[in-house]
């Protein structure tokens, strides 16, 4: 008996077709190790090195941490992020509440307008702010009358970040408030509960995890954002701009790594909390819950409509100012619409190539990123064997969410620019930009794909095996067609983010691979704010066109491949 117990467990022989799955699994693992783990690890080790390269670094690390300049930046970053979170979360919560719990009209219109900031780099709101309240701004007097010295510095950062983060925060809160069980409210009504008490005893606890998650996401977005403080920050230093200055301006990689580490810490920390909280949330709503349908109430609906009109008005004012200014011939003296910024500021400055590069990057990211993420999620969820590697891949797939783009970009410099690295031929190429962008946005794509795959019957693969059909045939004939809509979503997500991202790629481009979003930054630095606005508007326009194209493509895909979903009897 004991001999039986001690014998190693039996292992099934591997069918030759399953080797393909294992190969793909190893490929994904390698990609994430090279594109994520190793660069991050190098940032960590660099931070502990002294400037001459010897490894006695903890002392240097501590000394630098204690420097007043850095402490000031750290303090700035933290309080600005906390303030933005404190402003945006209640505003977005009210907006989400109006969208989900009222019967106000134009809900989808309101919702669409709040998504505008996602179409362009976050810089766009900073540029708009300058046009509104800057030294030559149209409403400068109003801004000064409020008691601010000017738009540059903390007030500008906070205001611009509020606009930039609003859609992200709103999305989480809408999801949280949509997940409501009508039965709870019916039970409360049956007990004669008053509206306010229902709000505090049912609504708020129900949205608790969503609120925590929204706050953490907002905080992380602000503390790791680099474009807005760069444009309207003035002399107000934050950690993100410090990294940029140290690395690009002073070429002080070691100190840059230390600051990057500081940036990584709160991001990773909030990510860990969020991850923990999310796991709890899944169990709160059972499959038998009844969806809550809001009932009309004239006063409440009117109040909510007014509120949403106000918010949406501010959003539009912010967005349209950049559009308007980009067409103004000579701000603020000659506001006649013309294409002067587009023609002489962009085309003549040979920034058309930047736009092309951006499109190329976005297209490659959308195609390869989607393919990699889908195959990765598929082999992880639907194939067998190599059980030791799977948890590691799961963890690596979640990690990019916790890593600020600046840190990732810095890691790429250290790793791919290192002498002796056989991969250094990739440095400053489009391929590396694509890899970096895919890794940067890997987590959201991965989670979307995993959700889509988990909704499929887990026995498809078992049935196929019993019918002697290799798994890749089932993948091609069944899994892929069913997942096409999710695939399109992921690819659109990759495309838009590749168009608008700055943080990671700002370290990685060469004159030949310059990107449109990065060009905004350079134009602004050179004082060409008109062309900068034009470029931002151009990106927003491109994103809009792409989204419309995706919508049309989605309709086509639905008609071609999803006919089985709601067939008539």
């Amino acid at each position: 008996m004991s001999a039986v117990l001690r014998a190693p467990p039996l292992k099934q022989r591997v069918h030759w077709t399953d080797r393909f799955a294992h190969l793909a699994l190893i490929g994904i693992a390698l990609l994430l190790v090279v594109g994520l783990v190793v660069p991050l690890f190098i940032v960590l080790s660099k931070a502990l090195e002294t400037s001459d390269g010897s490894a006695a670094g903890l002392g240097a690390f501590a000394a630098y941490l204690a420097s007043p300049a850095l402490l000031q930046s750290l303090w700035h970053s933290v309080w600005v992020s906390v303030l933005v979170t404190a402003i945006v979360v209640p505003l977005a919560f009210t907006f989400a509440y109006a969208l989900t719990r009222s019967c106000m009209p134009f809900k989808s219109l309101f919702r669409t307008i709040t998504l505008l900031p996602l179409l362009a780099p976050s810089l766009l709101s900073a540029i708009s702010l300058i046009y509104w309240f800057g030294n030559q701004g149209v409403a400068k007097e109003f801004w000064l009358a409020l008691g601010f010295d000017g738009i540059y510095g903390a007030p500008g950062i906070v205001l611009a970040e509020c606009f930039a983060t609003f859609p992200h925060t709103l999305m989480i809160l809408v999801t949280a408030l949509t997940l409501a069980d009508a039965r709870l409210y019916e039970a409360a009504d049956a007990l004669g509960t008053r509206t306010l008490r229902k709000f505090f005893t049912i609504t708020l606890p129900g949205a608790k995890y969503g609120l925590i998650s929204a706050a953490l996401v907002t905080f992380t977005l602000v503390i790791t954002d680099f474009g807005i403080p760069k444009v309207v920050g003035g002399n107000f230093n934050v950690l993100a701009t410090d990294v940029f200055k140290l690395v690009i301006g002073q070429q002080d990689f070691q100190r840059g790594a230390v600051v990057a580490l500081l940036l990584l810490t709160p991001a990773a920390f909030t990510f860990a909390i969020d991850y923990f909280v999310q796991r709890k949330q899944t169990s709160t709503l059972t499959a038998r819950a009844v969806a809550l349908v809001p009932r009309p109430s004239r006063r409440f609906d009117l109040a909510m409509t007014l509120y949403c009109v106000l918010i949406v008005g501010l959003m539009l004012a912010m967005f349209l100012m950049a559009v308007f200014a980009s067409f103004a011939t000579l701000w603020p003296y000659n506001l006649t619409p013309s294409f002067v910024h587009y023609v002489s500021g962009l085309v003549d400055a040979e920034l058309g190539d930047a736009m092309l590069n951006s499109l190329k990057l976005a297209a490659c990211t959308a195609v390869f990123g989607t393919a990699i993420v889908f195959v990765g999620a598929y082999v992880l969820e639907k194939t067998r064997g190599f059980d030791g590697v799977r948890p590691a891949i799961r963890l690596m797939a979640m990690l990019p969410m916790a890593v600020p783009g600046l840190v990732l970009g810095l890691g790429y410099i250290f790793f791919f620019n290192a002498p002796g690295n056989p991969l250094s031929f990739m440095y400053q190429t489009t391929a590396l930009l694509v890899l970096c962008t895919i890794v940067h946005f890997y987590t959201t794509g991965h989670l979307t794909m995993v959700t889509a795959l988990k909704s499929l019957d887990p026995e498809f693969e078992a049935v196929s095996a019993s019918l002697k059909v290799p798994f890749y045939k089932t993948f091609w004939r069944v899994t892929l067609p069913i997942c096409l809509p999710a695939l399109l979503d992921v690819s659109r997500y990759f495309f838009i983010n590749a168009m608008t991202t700055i943080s990671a790629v700002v370290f990685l481009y060469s004159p030949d691979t310059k990107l449109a979003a990065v060009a905004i930054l350079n134009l602004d630095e050179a004082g060409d704010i008109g062309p900068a606005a034009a470029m931002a508007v151009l990106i927003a326009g491109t994103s809009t066109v792409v989204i419309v194209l995706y919508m049309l493509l989605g309709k086509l895909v639905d008609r071609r491949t999803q006919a089985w979903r709601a067939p008539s009897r």
Partner: protein
Amino acid sequence: MSDATYLELRRIRKSFGSFTALDDIDLTIRRGEFVCFLGPSGCGKTTLLRIIAGLETQTSGTLMQAGRDISVLPPAGRDYGIMFQSYALFPNLSIADNVGYGLVNRKQSRAQVAPRVEELLKLVGLPGSGGKYPAQMSGGQQQRIALARALATSPGLLLLDEPLSALDAIVRVHLRNEIRDLQRKLGVTTIMVTHDQEEALSVADRIVVMNHGVIEQVGTPMQVYREPASPFVADFVGKVNRLTAVAEGDHWFRCGEKRLHCVAHADSDFRPGREVALYLRPEDRVVDGVRDDDPMRCSGTVRHVEFLGGNCLAEVLVDGMPGQPLQLQFSLNQMDEFDVREGNTIRFALRADRLRVFPVSPL
């Protein structure tokens, strides 16, 4: 049914960490047999089925199918068709494509596949529905499609994992008979996992009753019902009364103030003084023609009657057996005939030949 062994399981063990899901399972299944794995959830019956299918790998033990060692073969290397509780029909493929899914792969031409698909659809009673999608079919129809798909490649072994539990009661009874008829017609060796004892009793040639990862009993439905090998089997399959009693030797047992003589069970010689449990089905009682000197004669008061449709369960407090009421089954007609009503006293005898005796504590 031939007696040739088709599937043989030898000392199958499966453990997940420190938890033992299956403990030394030995089982032999004959060619053409319909076997049910029956047991409560978590008893290991599904794990055992998945091990036979190669979807899980046993920690140790050997599997032989038709003389071939399949212990470590991947699912694709084994010969079986499987149907899951969820059916796992491919929703984006038409019914014909679903049924022909395994055929197309065998390099058969379209012209060969189409008639075979239609033949299979006819076999499961759904001719001409090949152009539809699964979402257009009812649950029962989907189940038949899944069955047709599993049978398409003419596998030697058919595995059914709780195939009927997602259906409502009437369809379930109807379909289990159809599955049974089809199995007889095709003669395919079949294993069905179920937690529904009625289902197992009605369709199986043999039932494997499982609990906590071990086999409690293997036997025909009649054996499992009439001669349960353990208290668990007696409890799990059918309704049963459990009486605690003390052995007095020579097949006599004292229950309360009554002495009962158990004639069956020649092997169950319990030493006097030993505590035992007597198991008796509600229908195992005689009312007509009970002799006065019958040692199993009882009288008692009807405390409560549970109406179950064609039958009723009367809870009877037997004189001389305080605290151990018996559930006795009567048909509706017998209720009138014997005047079984709440508060009435009835006279009856327990069927000594049906009484099963088990020790209360392990020997």
